[in-house]
């Protein structure tokens, strides 16, 4: 069992998401940066669909009540076990009463803590992903006791670690495809869209990333249609809204671009105030 002594900015249990229930209006959810989450599960020999703790910007303080293997991937938030720095992307053995803390953010915005076998928290509609009104909890709170499978196999892959490419955390070009309503934009608007340097606004969250810059918007709203994580909508006020993993299933704003799956991961590691350009690969 893992006890939450102190929460970070926004800690949630996630997995690869909820599928097959969008017909009820339920979001996909799931880890924001699928690539980093997969790395931390893989280091432990877990399945990629095992549940994992997603940590945003500042980490929580966690107490382990048993011996267990863990791994951290994604953002480097200076993780420490009992005040001793531990490595990222590496299998770490923790023992009963060890305390995991985080410190300064070195790169990235979202870190992933995997435990051997995954967290055994609330499983709802084929997924462990926490989401608003759907699951009992929408994020971790102080005092939570997260169940885990208390099986330690320290002799297997004992030195497992993955070397990662750090450019993943500072990609300046977000790769996109043309969206359904891209051609409703004028040539000038299209050029502006693909040459503007956008800044991630502080309103961004797991549902959508917003930007500070405003574009000219002359497109009519569409009849409510389907959207996915990565869909870029242009709001009537001319702001871009990039839908992320917790996004709604349908929307009525024009869908001008679709972020590539790899670039959704890149964007997930960007924080407020960071800048990016859009690069059309269609």
């Amino acid at each position, binding site marked *: 069992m893992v006890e939450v002594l102190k929460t970070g900015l926004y800690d949630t249990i996630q997995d690869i998401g909820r599928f097959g229930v*969008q017909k*009820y*209006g339920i979001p996909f959810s799931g880890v924001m940066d699928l690539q980093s989450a997969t790395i931390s599960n893989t280091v432990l020999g877990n399945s990629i669909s095992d549940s994992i703790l997603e940590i945003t910007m500042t980490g929580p303080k966690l107490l382990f009540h048993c011996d267990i293997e863990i791994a951290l991937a994604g953002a480097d938030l200076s993780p420490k076990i009992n005040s001793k720095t531990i490595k990222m992307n590496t299998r770490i053995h923790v023992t009963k009463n060890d305390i995991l803390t985080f410190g300064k953010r070195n790169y990235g915005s979202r870190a992933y803590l995997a435990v051997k076998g995954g967290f055994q928290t609330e499983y709802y509609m084929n997924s462990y992903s926490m989401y608003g009104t759907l699951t009992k909890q929408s994020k971790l709170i102080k005092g939570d006791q997260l169940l885990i499978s208390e099986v330690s196999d320290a002799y297997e892959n004992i030195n497992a670690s993955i070397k990662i490419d750090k450019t993943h955390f500072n990609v300046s070009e977000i790769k996109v495809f043309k969206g359904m309503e891209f051609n409703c934009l004028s040539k000038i608007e299209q050029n502006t869209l693909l040459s503007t340097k956008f800044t991630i606004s502080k309103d961004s969250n797991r549902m959508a990333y917003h930007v500070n810059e405003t574009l000219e918007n002359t497109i009519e709203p569409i009849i409510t249609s389907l959207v996915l994580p990565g869909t870029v909508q242009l709001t009537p006020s001319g702001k871009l809204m990039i839908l992320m993993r917790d996004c709604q299933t349908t929307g009525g704003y024009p869908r001008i671009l679709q972020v590539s799956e790899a670039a959704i991961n890149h964007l997930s590691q960007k924080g407020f105030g960071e800048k990016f350009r859009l690069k059309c690969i269609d």
Partner: protein
Amino acid sequence: MKDFELTYHRFSERSILVQWPHRISKNILNDVLIFKNHLLKSNIKQVLQVNNAYNSILVIYKCTIDVVYDEVFALKALYFSRANAKNHVFRLWRIPVCYDDKFGIDLDEMSIEMKLSKSEIIKRHSEVFYTVFFIGFLPGFLYLGGLDKQLFFPRKKSPRLQIEKGAVAIGNQQTGIYPNVSPAGWNIIGNSPLEFFNNEPNLPCFAKAGDTIQFIPVSIEVHNEILKAVQNGTYSIESEVVYG
């Protein structure tokens, strides 16, 4: 069966959007649902799921689509081989709504702007049959078609940050019920005591696309009684089977 002119577009690496003509109509919805059903029954292994909205379906594949042309070709062939399933069962649901001023917080303003009395608004809202087109926006939020044109009313300029669970509202050409506490840009005219989303994983929503909804006006006393019964699990929603 009339064939509509459909368009097929790659939406993401793993999905294709099929679009019908840009209209909200029951004929289009019927065709959308027949094709969606046919697609799901045809057991294409690589298809993960199919979702629909008013005039579109999104086909999501398990893996990245290698050759979009091949998949579009397969979808087109399936569209032309679809058949209208006989005895497709839909239901008509009778949904109690209390239009009392306690709940209908925008009724006064709408009544003035529309130049219709409040009782006329309530009458027009509750005497028609609505079609459920799809569920989206929030878990359990029904997109309904069939609102009386006299009741079309623009969305609020700035949305309310929080409205009550069960709020019945009008936004532009649409009406709907907020299944939970939520921010809301639509105009609130009443409240339904029913649960539109519950934690029953096998059937979280009682209504589905293609079903019919009728709003039954109830007094605030009846609203409270039903609310209690719903909370105790002793209320059963009035409905009847309709063959599509």
